[in-house]
């Protein structure tokens, strides 16, 4: 059971890290960025290719990848979100345009094999790979019958640190205040001289950078990097997480992440494995029915 609880915490921190970026965009822009999972995937893929194909040391590769993912965030803002915002299209159309981007990102990686257009980015097509052994040290400790994996501990620490930093920025810095101001009332924010569009762009940058980071940590700790890790493994779980925590709430996303990890593992241990996959969504459904604003409920406004 201890082992399983540890497992829960590790999964939780990955969920949380993914969801933080997800929820940030929703909180500030009122749109669900369905390309977030694709950026998550690219975070892992880019890091991998920099290490395995271009032979950079892992840390360098990671930093570069995270930055690139941030830029992808800007791409999302400029291609999929801003044009729609300009003409007051309903948030649902942003849903579709981000789906479109996600499709493109995944397809590009999925089709990249040696000798193709994108072989510099990825060479294993739809296959799933892991970082070359030795690229990163991955010690494993066995203490009192429990297994502690270095990489996972790494993730745990990183994600907690990051969330603290992010939390601090948002709560105590001028930029953070501006962010919350825009989230609450774009008009008022504008009248204070805040360039709302710039805030949106930087939100996308940060959110996507976080998403990318989450992705590469995922690939590292679970030795699984493929075009589908975003879409299949975390996208919907991430949704469940931000709903549990309260859509748009950063602490909500963090708590929600760990909560979901716990729920899943408990369900797995108590009621057997086959229920585990469904439980996240049952939880999501119930939470919305019982308490739509989630645990750390922000206000609910109509969004359609």
């Amino acid at each position: 059971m201890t082992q399983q609880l540890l497992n829960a915490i590790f999964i939780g921190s990955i969920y949380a890290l993914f969801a933080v970026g997800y929820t940030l965009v929703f909180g500030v822009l009122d749109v669900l960025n369905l390309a977030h999972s694709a950026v998550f995937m690219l975070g892992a893929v880019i890091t991998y290719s920099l290490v395995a194909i271009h032979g950079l040391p892992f840390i360098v590769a990671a930093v570069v990848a995270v930055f690139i993912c941030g830029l992808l965030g800007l791409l999302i803002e400029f291609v999929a979100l801003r044009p729609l915002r300009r003409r007051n299209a309903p948030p649902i159309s942003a849903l579709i345009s981000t789906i479109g981007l996600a499709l493109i990102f995944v397809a590009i990686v999925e089709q990249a094999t040696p000798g193709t257009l994108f072989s510099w980015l990825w060479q294993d097509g739809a296959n799933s790979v892991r970082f070359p052994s030795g690229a990163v040290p991955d010690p494993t400790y066995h203490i009192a019958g429990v297994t502690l994996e270095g990489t996972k501990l790494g993730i745990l620490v990183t994600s907690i640190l990051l969330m603290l930093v992010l939390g601090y920025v948002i709560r105590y810095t001028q930029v953070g205040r501006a962010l919350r101001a825009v989230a609450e009332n774009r008009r008022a924010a504008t009248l204070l001289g805040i360039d709302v569009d710039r805030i949106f762009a930087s939100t996308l940058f940060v959110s996507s950078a976080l998403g990318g980071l989450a992705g590469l940590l995922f690939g590292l700790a679970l030795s699984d990097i493929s075009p589908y890790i975003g879409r299949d493994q975390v996208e919907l779980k991430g949704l469940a997480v931000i709903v549990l925590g309260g859509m748009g709430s950063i602490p909500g996303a963090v708590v929600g992440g760990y909560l979901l990890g716990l729920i899943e593992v408990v369900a797995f241990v108590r009621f057997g494995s086959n229920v585990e996959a469904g439980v996240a969504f049952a939880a999501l459904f119930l939470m919305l029915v019982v308490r739509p604003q989630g645990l750390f409920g922000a206000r609910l406004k109509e969004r359609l």
Partner: protein
Amino acid sequence: MDFFILLFTDPVRFYNSHELLIAQIGVNAILAISLFVTFYSGQLTLANAGFMAVGAYTTVIMSLYLPLPLPVDILTGTLLAGAVGFLVGLPVLRLRGIFLAIATIGFVEALRLGVILNVPITGEGQGLKNPGADPLGGIVPILVSLPIIAYLVWRLTRAKLGHAWAAIREDELAASSNGINVALYKMLAFVIGALLAGYAGALETHINFFVDPTEYSVTRAIQILTFAVAGGTTNVLGPIVGALFLTSLPEIIRQASAYRDVVNGVILILVIIFRPQGIVAGGGFAIHRPHWWPVNWRLGGRTASTG
């Protein structure tokens, strides 16, 4: 392109060699309509994939275990889907916009991963073969019912029912001030949508031989949404065109085979940006020019309400 060449030079052969595609278009069109109905009443739901599953599985299971005529199986599947729709609607219809959408996603996945994969009678992960399947005959009921359904829905939107839906979509508060029982009419839309989705699901099992859980995932739900939104949700023609367009797209752009999904995505984005109201919508064939930079600086719709 040879897709069109064949279509125009030799329609008969085109039909013979694309019957399944056409059938699939029909099914998808019905699904898109089922989403359109709820959308028309101002609700964004993704539950259709789940209702589909109910319809499909019920039909197949019945034809496996009960010696009843096929229509009975299909009818039962459809009605059951409607019933499930009602039960799901009770709790979720309080929710609005994206929240309703997400709740319904929860329903779909919980149904798929939680129920279908754990109830032996559904064949779990292995899925179920449909003995009654007849890919070439299966197209008939589809092609027959699509126009009927389209017509019915079109007339509904013209009837008192439709006016109430439109009113609720436009402004729930004003609607109730006109004596419209908002909750009731929302539920009606939701259930009708469920019935249609269930029916489509039931029909689909007869053009492919096999039902398995993977088909009734959120991916499918979102696909249905894109049919409707890309096609346009101002009138019932939109979803049909959307389904037609997006379903045949993979066949049309086979040339781009490897990067088909890229093309898919690009087209999706282009449509949503240049035709925000969908392919079929008011404003004829006007193309919306996006103002890439703040020529006409606006903040949301919010400003227009001040003054």
